[in-house]
């Protein structure tokens, strides 16, 4: 079984500042890792995913994440945020060979002008 912990429920940040949203996971098997973004009244949209290979993954909208197996972390980063990045961000994990995706509780990113 897998579990996901998003360490911050809310992250306020000023526009053009860098941001890091933290995610830790636990699993007894190898995993795939995902970050999704959810804008108000919309479905989840995939930002990026780690399947294998390079531990630094680049996604859409300038986001990137780094898989750290020893620390079982998959933190999301962006060097300079925009007002439009204000949304809920979900980290998720799925065991390789499985189909059940487990989501964290989410981190609300609030970008201030």
């Amino acid at each position, binding site marked *: 079984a897998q579990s*996901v912990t998003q360490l911050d429920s809310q992250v306020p940040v000023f526009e053009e500042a860098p941001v890091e949203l933290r995610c830790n996971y636990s699993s007894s098997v190898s995993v*795939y890792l995902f970050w*999704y973004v959810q804008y108000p*009244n*919309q*479905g*989840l*949209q*995939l930002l990026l*995913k780690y*399947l*294998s290979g390079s531990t630094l993954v680049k996604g859409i909208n300038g986001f990137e994440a780094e898989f750290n197996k020893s620390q079982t972390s998959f933190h999301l980063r962006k060097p300079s945020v925009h007002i439009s990045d204000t949304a809920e961000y*979900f980290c*998720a994990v*799925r065991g*390789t*060979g*499985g*189909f*059940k*995706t*487990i*989501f*964290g*509780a*989410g981190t609300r990113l609030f970008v201030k002008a």
Partner: protein
Amino acid sequence: GAGVSQSPRYKVAKRGQDVALRCDPISGHVSLFWYQQALGQGPEFLTYFQNEAQLDKSGLPSDRFFAERPEGSVSTLKIQRTQQEDSAVYLCASSSGGGTSTEETQYFGPGTRLLVL
């Protein structure tokens, strides 16, 4: 279609009523997932279909919840005798592969917000 669609977008039900939530996945997608998202929480897995076969229903909270996908495309999630704790957003997602593929990107619909009074 262009994406996953769900209907209705909003549903208010009186406690004890039955409701049916519809999901239209992306055309040709093999896999279909239902999730329940409570307020302030991440989505929680309910059930999974591969074509018309329901391969996993371990996340359904009770026997009041029932899902079907009879022709391997549109899916319906039915909740009988709704309770207040059923109030949540119900999300549907589809993907092109067979569920465990590494290319398994799930595309989510906008969800149905259910409020049980």
